[in-house]
């Protein structure tokens, strides 16, 4: 049960890490690589807050040993942006109001990214199915679904209220 030296490709960079075999990818990302965007929310694979992209697919990093992730391209939420400017998808999540407490957001955004990379204009049903493994307590999922629709260039309901004035000045996507 010695520690072993492994190579992980995370956000396009090769990282050498010394790990115990029982460490999950999530633990290594958070504890060894200081990538705390992936969260630990449930310990049993039911919440989706630990989601990362593994070769482009959204997977749970709490259900993957770090050693199993060798040889694969890992992208975490930190890898979607340069740290200063949000990626277009992140910006749409913010603008549409799809982020509230933000604990689900990294997993939710990465899941949405994987979906959008494989389907150019997913239907509402497809979006809900794709994010059904990511729990959110704040949004009722409505604005998340709308953000993914907007990100794929599909129309989303325009909500205005009488006092809101000119619709065009709204910060939509």
């Amino acid at each position, binding site marked *: 049960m010695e520690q072993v030296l492994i190579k992980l490709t995370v956000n396009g960079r090769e990282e050498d890490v010394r790990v115990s075999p*029982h460490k999950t990818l999530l633990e290594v990302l958070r504890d060894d690589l200081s990538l705390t965007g992936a969260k630990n929310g449930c310990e049993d694979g039911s919440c989706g807050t630990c989601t990362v992209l593994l070769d482009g697919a959204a997977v749970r990093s709490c259900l993957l040993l770090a*050693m199993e992730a060798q040889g694969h391209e890992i992208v975490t939420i930190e890898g979607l942006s340069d740290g200063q400017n949000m990626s277009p998808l992140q910006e749409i999540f913010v603008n549409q109001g799809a982020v509230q407490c933000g604990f689900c957001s990294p997993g939710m955004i990465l899941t949405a990214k994987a979906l959008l990379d494989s389907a150019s204009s997913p239907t509402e049903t497809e979006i809900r199915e794709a994010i059904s493994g990511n729990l959110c307590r704040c949004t009722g999922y409505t604005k998340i679904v709308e953000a993914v629709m907007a990100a794929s260039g599909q129309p989303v309901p325009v909500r205005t209220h009488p006092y809101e004035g000119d619709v065009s000045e709204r910060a939509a996507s």
Partner: protein
Amino acid sequence: MQLPRFDFIQPATIDEACSLLDERKGDATVLAGGTDLLIELRRRLRKPGCVIGLKEMRGLDYIQKDDGGDLRIGALARLQWIESSPIIAEEYPALAQATRLVAVPPIRRVATIGGNLSLDTRCIYYNQSEFWRSAQADCIKLGGDICHAVPKGRRCLAVCQSDLAPVLMALGASVKIVSAEAERTVALADFFTGKGEKPNVLAPGELLAEVIIPSDGQRAAVYEKLRIREGMDFPLAGIVVSLGTDGQGAAAGARIVLSAVGPAPTRIVEAEGLLEGKRIDDDLLEQVAQVMFERAHPVANLAMDPWYRRKMVKVLTKRAVRQALETAKAN
């Protein structure tokens, strides 16, 4: 909650995996998708000294037809491949349908067919954290001699909650099991022991390698799954009906499997017999459903009233028979 410490080895070939399993017989467990195993490890339901990782192993990751027309699915085929496989969509749509009802998409992306079939039986008194279990005496499944779900129960009735098992059973599937010494093929019906504490026949050192599904002809199969949410949940009861028609609209060769109400999915031959050669009307449906109801004996070991689970066996049976018949006629 951390995982326990273990040795981790990733064999490159099946032979290597088998010899490792043989070397560390009783102390090793295989890790395929990991979506169930890692949770069991976190909960200390298993304490293997050695975990054999199969994700990178080649040789069991296929879905293909053999020369005899049977479909062979390597145990490491991911559920996502199964739900999106053209051959399966074409010839075994019920398998694809059932697969889409497993957990949620990110789980299906890594979970494997072998893992789903060898899913350990589950019980609300068993699938809990180590702390939770420390507050009660060990049950039969944990090596003790009591059952918390059934007072004075002498048998473990933990539930097989695999979604794929009943469908594959109705499709007449068998599995190939390999070990360092030998290889055997077992009909799925014989793969399951019916014992909650030891749900399948896999012996230490053995590896589930392949699922073999015979050609289904013009038959139609339907899986009805009882669950509470539109996703994530394990089945609380399941019914699979597979049948053909004789050309005049009567049922032929029906197979009906009852699952998720006991330790193993079970073919209910008596119910199948009722359908044979018959045109199906409401009376017959009621009779078949009643047989299924009588054969279902869920106990209070899942997070849903057994009264309801049993009742739903009846409703789901009718729905599955009706739909299977319609589909078969359309075929």
